[in-house]
């Protein structure tokens, strides 16, 4: 489904009436311009489907604008948007249709495409190849995490949110967030340590640690 851009949204000059409280979301075009990349990144990493990420990004902003009166500014606009996006992603992944099509859809993200975007940082060709393989390994491992572990991992390491902020976004207690993050990290660490490239680099370390 194509995203229609600003025309999909109501005009930002719509009068909210005298009683309506002004919110940072009133200027929707500006909000979209500021936060659209961030919401799209999070949804793309969560769903691994370009079309679904695009559709839900659009839906996130529509819902945010529709419910702007309930935005009390007790958190940042970004946090509020990510919370909406997370709920939409959760609803989306619960449907049987998503589960059936997620591996065969044409818009599914190919891990090799993501790995191709590994920054070079003036590495040697061999180091660049190892970096790509490490990124591909993490991308695939994240896909195998439970939905909660994945969300929390992405919020921590892609969105770079602090633990209390993640708790606010997910609506989970701090302890639950921490335990999901520990488990996610333990799985990713195990994958990282068992990766052939990592064994090649830190083989002695891994053996001794075990």
């Amino acid at each position, binding site marked *: 489904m194509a995203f229609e851009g600003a025309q999909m949204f109501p005009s930002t000059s719509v009068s909210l009436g005298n009683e309506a409280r002004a919110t940072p979301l009133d200027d929707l075009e500006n909000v979209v311009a500021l936060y659209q990349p961030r919401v799209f990144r999070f949804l793309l990493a969560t769903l691994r489907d370009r079309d679904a990420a695009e559709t839900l990004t659009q839906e996130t902003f529509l819902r945010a604008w529709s419910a702007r009166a309930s935005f009390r500014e007790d958190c940042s606009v970004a946090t509020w948007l990510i919370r909406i996006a997370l709920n939409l992603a959760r609803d989306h992944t619960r449907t049987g249709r998503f589960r059936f099509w997620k591996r065969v859809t044409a818009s599914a993200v190919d891990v090799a495409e993501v790995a191709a975007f590994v920054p070079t940082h003036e590495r040697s060709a061999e180091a660049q190849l190892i970096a790509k393989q490490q990124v591909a390994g993490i991308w695939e491992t994240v896909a195998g995490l439970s939905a909660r572990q994945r969300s929390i991992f992405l919020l*921590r390491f892609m969105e770079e949110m602090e633990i209390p902020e993640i708790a606010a976004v997910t609506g989970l207690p701090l302890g639950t967030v921490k335990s999901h993050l520990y488990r996610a990290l333990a799985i990713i660490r195990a994958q990282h340590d068992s990766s052939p490239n990592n064994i090649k680099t830190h083989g*002695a370390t891994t053996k001794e640690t075990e």
Partner: protein
Amino acid sequence: MTPQLTTEQQATQAGTTDCALLGETHLTGEQFGALMGGMTEVAGPDISQAEAHLLVCEQCAAELASLREAISLFREASNAYADEELRSRPRWILPARRSLSHSLIPAYWVAATAMFLTALLPMQVMRRHSVAPPAAGVSSVAVSNTASDTQSDEALLEDVNSEISASVPTSMQALADPTADASTANNETSVPTTDQKKD
């Protein structure tokens, strides 16, 4: 007299940071996760112990650094991929649309106003011409035209009503009573016969 060195000092002097020499164990999974996840403020007092361990244990420090780097690359690559994906969809470029639409808003209004006035002006002129001079004559013609139009409309509606209410449409009358048609046909065929006889 040579001062007695602690195990840690001996290890440092020897240029090695093997935890075995120090009699220490490596980081636990929880400590590792806490350091990785930046949960220092919520992980309890043993996080400082873990941080101190990293200063003397190259292995744990290297493993932590390696995983941190891999996750950092994962974030950079994922974000760059998502940004590129977003850029490849032109309709998503909202700032450009916004500036375009904002810059064109006055032009839209000017064009719309000009078109409205252009359409309104001839209508006003025609109205003045038609209403002003022979008011009585023109209006009576207009009234009679309207009356005749109404009559013809009513006649047409009546025709339609009768057509609808008729059991058999006019166009299908020929098929309504095949016997009558046959007799009529016979009569028609017989008539010439009799006529011929007469002839």
